[in-house]
């Protein structure tokens, strides 16, 4: 009785096994520690979409002969505790050849030393803190541009166009990311000879910035430079406009989100922000990527694109070294040169940080547009 019930199942299983292609392919796992829940969940969702798109694309293209990539994506809940747990799982249980992530720089300073000790290559795709990430060791690499690579360029491009001489600076001082952004803004403004007429701070839970903005605007700065997460950024922009400020506002990477325009509405017009991804770039790699994401029904942002490139870089390293092992990926990273990616031609700097050209966006007609 039991046998006869199982027989069709067994037959179906046999049929399936026969129908699927010969298992000559080696499955190679790439791990990802992403913040799918918690405060950074919005970034994690974009990164997940980018990683899956890249893995599917590379498997379909067959550029890695005999290798099938598999993404093992785990949620770190935006916390260091779970980030560490995820890294140890990916390293010891899933035995991945490389790890993409983690989403937050703060988490990375706790997790990346584990990968360094175990000898597992890490590709940071959204860590922007200038110091303390790739410094951890020779297994830690980075695709994302640091604030130090994006903000000075954005400020210079903006000055060439707008010719400002004085700046008012506002930043969130209770967040690792916005604080790091501020340090970069400060030194960049000094290097350009722009006079900082006032510096004000706020905290993440704050929703009213009128006191700080009034103090800053009283000094009549030519430009307002702001380092804030997107949840604060829209409020700051809207309130600055309400206080009658009509001049330019330049934001850090936190401004780099469609949510800014959605929340601040008309007030966001004229806001400038540096970006790692020039989404209207006409290079073939970018056009193909935009088309691919459109076909998958996903609206990509910078974080999605950087995660996509993270997988691309790992795959290219395997191709270049001819090995799909941890050491092979690391050896391949040294050879990655001018790889065509949606971010532009990609290479690593000797510091293991990513190197490609950033762009400057301006909000115009309710959309981010690349400033020419």
């Amino acid at each position: 009785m039991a046998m006869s019930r199982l027989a069709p199942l067994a037959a179906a299983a046999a049929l399936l096994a026969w129908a699927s292609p010969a298992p000559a392919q080696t499955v190679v796992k790439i791990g990802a520690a992403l913040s799918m829940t918690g405060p950074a969940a919005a970034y994690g969702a974009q990164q997940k979409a980018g990683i899956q798109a890249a893995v599917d694309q590379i498997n379909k293209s067959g550029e890695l002969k005999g290798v099938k990539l598999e993404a093992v994506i785990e949620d770190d809940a935006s916390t260091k505790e779970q980030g560490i747990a995820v890294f140890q799982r990916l390293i010891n249980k899933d035995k991945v050849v490389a790890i993409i992530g983690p989403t937050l720089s703060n988490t990375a300073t706790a997790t990346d030393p584990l990968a360094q000790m175990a000898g597992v290559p890490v590709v940071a795709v959204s860590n922007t803190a200038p110091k303390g990430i790739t410094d951890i060791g020779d297994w830690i690499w980075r695709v994302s541009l640091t604030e130090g690579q994006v903000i000075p360029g954005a400020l210079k491009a903006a000055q060439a166009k707008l010719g400002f001489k004085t700046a008012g600076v506002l930043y969130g001082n209770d967040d690792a990311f916005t604080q790091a952004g501020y340090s970069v803004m400060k030194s960049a403004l000094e290097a350009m000879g722009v006079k900082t007429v006032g510096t004000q701070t706020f905290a993440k839970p704050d929703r009213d910035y009128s006191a700080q903005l009034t103090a800053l605007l009283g000094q009549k700065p030519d430009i307002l430079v702001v380092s804030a997460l997107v949840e604060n950024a829209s409020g700051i922009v809207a309130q600055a406009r309400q206080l009658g400020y009509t001049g330019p506002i330049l934001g850090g990477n936190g401004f780099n989100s469609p949510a800014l325009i959605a929340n601040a509405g008309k007030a966001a017009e004229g806001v400038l922000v540096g970006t790692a991804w020039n989404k209207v770039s006409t290079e073939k790699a970018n056009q193909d990527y935009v088309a691919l994401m459109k076909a998958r029904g996903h609206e990509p942002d910078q974080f999605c694109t950087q995660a996509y490139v993270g997988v691309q870089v790992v795959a290219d390293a395997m191709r270049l070294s001819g090995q799909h092992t941890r050491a092979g990926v690391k050896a391949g990273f040294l050879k990655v040169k001018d790889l065509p990616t949606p971010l532009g031609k990609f290479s690593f700097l000797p510091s293991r940080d990513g190197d490609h050209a950033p762009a400057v966006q301006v909000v115009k007609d309710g959309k981010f547009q690349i400033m020419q």
Partner: protein
Amino acid sequence: MMEGLADLYATYQSTLAYIGLNGLLALSIYTSLSCGQLALGNAGFAAIGAYAAALLTMNAGAPFPLALAAAAVVPALVAIPLGLPVLRLKGIFLAIATIGFGEVVRIGLVNWDYVNGAQGLVAIPQKASVGLIWIVLAAATLLLWRLRGSKWGFALEAIRQDEPAARTMGIDTASYKLAMLMLGAALAGLAGGLEAHFTFMVAPNGFGFSRVVDMLVFAVVGGIASVWGPLFGASFLTVLPEAMRDLAPLLGIEPGPLRMLVNGLILLAVILFLPQGLVSLGARWRERRAARARRAA
């Protein structure tokens, strides 16, 4: 086989460490709760311990045992000037004042450039092992467990049940309460110092209000009638999110947001149906069985 075991240990090493760290933090809340004080400054104490220890090993080149001693002593000393005024408050007012203290510590660290503000201290040498964390936890458990049957323990129980009555019995309630606040601060500080030397980094945002809520939830879910409750609660709630990673695919749940939902549901069920905490489950079952046996007789 041996290699498999080594991998298994390496995979869950941090979970084991966090069971120990969270156990210590749950005990630190339990010390004040055991004499009826809802003191919620322990995230602040943990931060002071973590920063004190990390600064000592990184900037002063102090040996790790000394740094760990400082992680316990410094918060305990800070607890004295804090405790003298705030322990005059009761119930929710004490809770609010001590939460305020925790926030002051966090915001102080955020604005202190010497410790890198919000970016925190990074590249701290890893000196604490899982074994050491568990030894410290075992010592703390033994201390609190021995306290219970002692003269001290009876005094604390008296204060918890009725403070004015305890005072009229000649118990120096203020000193006992302050001593327990200091002990709790020392345990939280130890957890902080160990965590800093296990996870390579500390940042102020790791010691916010939500951290102290976590500690309180460990204690309440486990049960605060004995020292075992907070330990059990901390272990259970630390293992749960990690276990869900393995269980979620088997249950056909998408890992991620739903994982946290299941976590929350279990929490809610415990609070609603087991107000004495998870450790009361055994007693409940025994009662039920006894009642059924009586009916049958």
